[in-house]
């Protein structure tokens, strides 16, 4: 059994195709693990396994079940975005991403925990329960896709999808020793994905290795642009399964504004520098570049994302679905429902965003932040004239302790320091595990121009092979034993 759970998804799919393993066996093995979840990774599991029996072994994803962040609407299935305000909500429709992966042969295993409405970097903002990091149960898995990351790292799911607005796929992947990919904005449909910040949100895979990430991405984009999402586009190529073993001829840019910032922990920096050496060993050229406005990314992000969120979350008003409170008049219906239904961080961001858009402040905050966004995108464009890829640490630190940063919002927001610039520029970025610090995984982030996912995946694959990171916390060198 445990051998089965150790298979990467691509390997499991191969076994299924070879007839050595049935999709039902695979599902029940994972289901058993998920039911015994002690990490708080899952918010919901189906009473009966969903759909897998109908999944043909020859479907491209061979029936390998998928953990789905609870931000994706699935028809008739509780979907809460880890918020009280959506307790009991069962959507009348299914998200395009979930539908496409199910159609390709990856049925949903269950819904995973997250920071409420994807707002957070530790998963402590779930209205239901915090999630524990499989590498060290008193530490956070990162967020907001913390449940998806913990489920995969903890062996409760073979792979998962999450969403990334300012780092919500990459940072938990980094903290849990996994691969996390945020695709180019527009590559994957947002239809049915509960909105946090519409101009930034993207769906992407969190997996044990780069090949699995490529496999999921391939089927997320394969159907072409989604007519239900005006901002989605056709991906210009097919996503290839990476096989590259070296980085010959590749020019890689290092950004001192991000990798040398005071906020980056020494242990993280050590792993980062070692990875740069590996790049050179693999034939890549490392050079220093500058993204002069990237240090302002966080400021711009914490204006733009809350501003969009403040409008996106106005629909939670106690009228058509979800929670309703209040004592009889309309104003109290609105104010009580939203006061009771939203958690602290969500309220904080609604307040911040409402303030930034309000009369008299718009230009100083929202207007300026939009211009910073332009400058950041220009910085990247200029950088990609010189280099093929840009690399940074994913997270300034390894997984921190539960409760460590909850009292200081700004300290928590700093977790996104290295990931928000790419989000603002709409660029694809992947985090791969590059080593350990204090016995905890350290992620390495690779970014390329828009729609350069194949290039990213190839480089990430070559590095992954060279690094040889073991994604199992149980076996991880010096890692805390899994429970």
């Amino acid at each position: 059994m445990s051998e089965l759970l150790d298979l990467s998804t691509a390997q499991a799919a191969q076994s299924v195709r070879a007839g050595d393993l049935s999709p039902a066996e695979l599902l029940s093995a994972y289901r058993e693990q998920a039911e015994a979840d002690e990490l708080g990774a899952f918010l919901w599991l189906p009473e009966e396994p969903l759909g897998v029996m109908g999944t043909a072994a020859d479907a491209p994803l061979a029936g390998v079940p998928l953990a789905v962040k609870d931000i994706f609407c699935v028809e008739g299935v509780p979907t809460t975005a880890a918020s009280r305000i959506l307790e009991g909500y069962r959507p009348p429709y299914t998200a395009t991403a979930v539908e496409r992966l199910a159609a390709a042969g990856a049925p949903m295993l269950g819904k995973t925990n997250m920071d409420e409405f994807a707002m957070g970097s530790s998963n402590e903002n779930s209205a239901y329960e915090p999630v524990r990091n499989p590498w060290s149960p008193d530490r956070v898995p990162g967020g907001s896709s913390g449940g998806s990351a913990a489920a995969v790292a903890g062996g409760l799911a073979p792979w998962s999808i999450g969403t990334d607005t300012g780092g919500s796929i990459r940072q938990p992947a980094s903290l849990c020793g996994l691969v996390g990919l945020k695709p180019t904005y527009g590559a994957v449909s947002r239809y049915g994905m509960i909105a946090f910040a519409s101009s930034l949100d993207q769906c992407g895979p969190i997996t044990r290795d780069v090949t699995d990430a490529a496999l999921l991405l391939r089927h997320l984009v394969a159907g072409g642009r989604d007519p239900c999402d005006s901002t989605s586009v056709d991906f210009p190529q097919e996503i290839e399964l990476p096989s590259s073993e070296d980085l010959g001829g590749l020019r890689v840019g290092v950004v001192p504004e991000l990798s040398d910032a005071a906020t980056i922990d020494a242990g993280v920096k050590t792993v980062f520098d070692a990875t740069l050496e590996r790049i050179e060993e693999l034939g890549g050229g490392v050079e220093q570049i500058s993204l002069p406005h990237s240090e302002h990314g966080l400021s711009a992000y914490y204006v733009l994302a809350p501003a969009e969120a403040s409008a996106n979350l106005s629909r939670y008003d106690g009228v058509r679905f979800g929670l309703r409170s209040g004592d009889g008049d309309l104003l109290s219906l609105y104010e009580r429902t939203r006061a009771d239904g939203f958690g602290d961080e969500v309220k904080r961001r609604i307040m911040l965003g409402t303030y930034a858009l309000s009369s008299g402040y718009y230009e100083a905050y929202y207007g300026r932040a939009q211009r910073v966004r332009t400058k950041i995108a220009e910085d990247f464009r200029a950088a990609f004239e010189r280099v093929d890829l840009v690399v940074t640490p994913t997270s300034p630190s390894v997984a921190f302790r539960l409760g460590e940063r909850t009292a200081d919002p700004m300290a928590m927001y700093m977790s996104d320091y290295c990931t928000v610039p790419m989000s603002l520029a709409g660029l694809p970025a992947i985090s791969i595990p590059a080593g350990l610090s204090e016995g905890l995984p350290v992620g390495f982030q690779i970014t390329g121009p828009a729609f350069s996912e194949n290039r990213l995946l190839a480089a990430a694959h070559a590095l992954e092979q060279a690094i040889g990171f073991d994604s199992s916390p149980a076996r991880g060198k010096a890692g805390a034993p899994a429970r």
Partner: protein
Amino acid sequence: MTTVTTTPTERAYEPVIGLEIHVQLRTQTKMFCGCALSFGDEPNTHTCPVCLGHPGTLPVPNAEAIHFALMIGLALECELAPRSIFHRKNYFYPDLPKGYQISQFDVPLSRSGRLGDVRVHRVHLEEDAAKLVHAGASGRIHGAEASVVDFNRGGTPLVEIVTEPDLSSPEQAGEWLRLLRATLKRLGVSDVNMDEGSLRCDANVSIRPAGTATLGTKTELKNMNSFRFLERGIAAEVTRQEQILRGGGEVEQETLHFDPQTGALSSLRSKEESHDYRYFPEPDLVPLAPTQAMLDRARAALPELPAARAERLERELGLPTDTARLLAFRSELGDFYESALGADGATDPATLASWVTVELVARLGDVDPVESPVSPEALAELVRLVSARSVSGSAAKEVLDAMAAGGGRPEAIVAERGLGLAGAGELEAIVDRAIEANPDAVEKVRAGTGKAMGAIVGAIMRETKGRADGGEVQRMVRERLGLG
């Protein structure tokens, strides 16, 4: 030089009026989802996750709504923006499922246009709100009044047209709105039915000392749902503002509701409620940049518009202004008229126009003549019979009655009912009999009392049952009496 000082009490004021019109477009589906548009269907039977504002849903704009909006922009001679974007207008209200309305803000689809002598400030696209229906006291909500939301209307494509404050009387505002309505109707982009709310009008009203160019504080009159209410509402508001200024007071900027029952104006918004819509670009939509193909298609779809048609009918056919406007503003009448005119080139345009706008309208009311049993060819034939003096005017009206009731060709009806003008021989005999039977009147006519002629002619007309031409009869009587 002497300076004349006028006190506010004596001063004459003139109104300055601008209109804001909301037009529901007549597309098959809503602005941002595939739900069919409906009017009067069972509540909440035309909804989907998108127009109910469910989590995770996204808007996708309706191409036909954009097409209609471009047609309107072109018809109103606007400058079309090469690139416009949608914004979110944020406020909470139960008829607004997302907590924001998708609308256009600083970069509308088109601006700086004109219709007639009124400048159009801007034309933009947005989505309509749902409908709140009062439901009386609710059992569930303790002691409070409840409403029920029906989302059928929510998301209907809406075009907002804002004029410059170029109107200076309630009547002019009403007249201009009629022109706009006729124009939109002619474009075929909306039902423009004020009762059903597919055309809604707000007015911005201020007054200023006559002859000056200053702008006074304006108030906004909301949702006047008929031409009459619009005119009465504006008139009431102008009077109210005049009374305030004459009393030495100041007009406050506010939004008012006009109650057509009582004629009263009441303030709609409380002061402590601040309105801060926090507009920002809608991130779920991409910019709208009309392509040449889109513009060509919109241009090709433009029919001749009422203002141009009225001008042409007046200029080319010599119709009186009012008749030309009536034919142009009710384009179905204009179409009927022009097709009748084409059916018989010999018909006098002005006579035919009067038969359409007076006689036919009197019989059909608001019914589209195309839907009536009267065909344009038949009406043209009738007018020709009258002109050729084959049938009298009054008999022709009887023929038209018959046509409006059951169709048919005029000549057949005339023959069947014996309504043709009496022949010369028959008429001579009748004239002789009338002269014999009315000696007193004859005496007076001979003595030069013109009025007495009426009695003789009347008798003849009675006997012919109107099958005689009054002028001809009079000529024959005079001849018989040797008055030549």
